[in-house]
């Protein structure tokens, strides 16, 4: 129903590092669950609109007024790593010669 490559592809999309035994278990579990879900194909949904939200809601704009918010110190208080007013993360951009 679902192969190892697909599991690894989806895990990469979800940014989840999986151990080998986890891949095997997920292959089995997701296979079973998706197989059970095929029952939905028995339902005719031609001309049925999807429901993404239980009740119709629209975007609500608030007045554009300045309000007090959190301080930078508060926001950074949970950061695993920070410097000055920034969250610090490992290098994202490759280093070029001369930079």
């Amino acid at each position, binding site marked *: 129903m679902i192969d190892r490559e697909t599991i690894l592809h*989806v895990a990469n999309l979800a940014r989840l590092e999986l151990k080998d035994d986890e891949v095997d278990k*997920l292959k089995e579990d997701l296979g079973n669950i998706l197989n059970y879900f095929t029952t939905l194909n028995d339902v005719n949904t031609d001309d049925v609109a999807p429901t993404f939200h239980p009740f119709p809601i629209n975007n609500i704009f608030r007045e554009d007024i300045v309000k007090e918010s959190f301080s930078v110190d508060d926001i950074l208080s949970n950061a695993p790593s920070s410097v000055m007013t920034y969250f610090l993360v*490992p290098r994202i951009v490759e280093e070029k010669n001369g930079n």
Partner: protein
Amino acid sequence: METKKFTIGELIKGYKNKSVSPREVLDYVFNNIKLYQPKINSFITLMEEYAYKSVESLSFDEIDSKPLWGIPVAIKDNMCVKGFKTTCSSKILEPFTPIYTATAVQRLIDAGAIVVGKTNLDEFAMGSSTENSAFFTTSNPWDMDRVPGGSSGGSASAVSARFVPLATGSDTGGSIRQPASFCGVVGFKPTYGTVSRYGLVAFASSLDQIGPFATKVKDVEAAFSVISGKDDMDSTSHPYKFSPVDKNIKEYKIGIIKELYETEGFDPEVLNSLKDVIKLLKEEGLKVDFCSLPHLEYSLPVYYLVATSEASSNLARFDGVRYGLRVEGKDIIETFLQTRGRGFGSEVKRRIMLGTYALSSGYYDAYYLKASKVRTLIVNDFEKAFEDYDCLICPTSPTTAFKKGDKTNDPLSMYLSDIATIPVNLAGLPGISIPIGLDKKGLPIGLQIIGKPFKDNDILNFASKIESIINFEAEPSLLGGR
């Protein structure tokens, strides 16, 4: 203190006539927690010092204006309380201390409630037994070898063990009602949107709802009166106006959901208990009939596709950059992979994988879109049923509390435990579970009452009336020693 007096109404009566003080009640609360918490494990964090400080700041002049004056409350550990860890029972959030308080919690505090601790749950509220907590498993106070249900098992067990008269839960597919049923207490999931979710860690945004646990319907109603209503911090919140209903029970037309009555997998003892209730209702002169929700059988696949899809998106924020665990890799991508790979437990990974798959290119139409269309048919079934009935009833869960470890290796059988509660979230309806009896093993059985959208006060009134007819007074045997 007698456990029967450990309700909001009785406590406030005691406070008013000065036969007991909030401080003495806190002594009672923390004493019981010290004695029984090691066995039951309801709490992840206790807030003893904070609670005693809060009691100091209560002014007796405000007892009439604050409906929860001096009432101890436990908070599910996926709701933020400023300055106290909010873990979601996950390693990935273990180091997280919120810098603000959830609106629902703040409203309880503003109404005079005293927060005493944060309760255990299935990691990120994903589960039906509280066994998916990354820290420890919670026991059912009625039988320590059994699960309290989930995901709000910590809160349900805390009320059941009479640690607290009131606790909060969140309900995405039954996470308030199913544990309430397993623990023999009342659990209420209000209509979607009536309680602000600001400060609740999101699981599935089109389904999540906050609600209260207590031992009596009047007590969950008191909590709901405080936490419901519009909040500017949650754009999905609804301007619900709490207004008590006092209608004669004879005025209600009741539908028994056929698909959750004559179904395989439902314990005969649970169904017999429901039959007893139906008999009582008929004796009271109510109109009770069978109704049909033909698409109900598809609720489980629809729910698991919708909920996991939304969860895979909501949980993308846990990346080790701004808060929580970080497992540093050689670059940012490896940091994401390792942080999430080690921070999330197996059920959360399973659901993120399922949701990511259902939303991924090439599968979206076949899974997520298809499920969202079948969801419409389920919503329509309810609408049609409510043309003829005011409330629908069914068992809250097909069985009573199961043993620890019984379902941990079979995700599908665990999911089936929520078969009766899940459809209610898909349609955003209010639902309440009340205890109606015990099975032969002495475990509580719950009745679910489902109402029309935004008719929360209507079903609370019905639930309260039926509660007084059934008169369920049993308590876990461990309370006999108090």
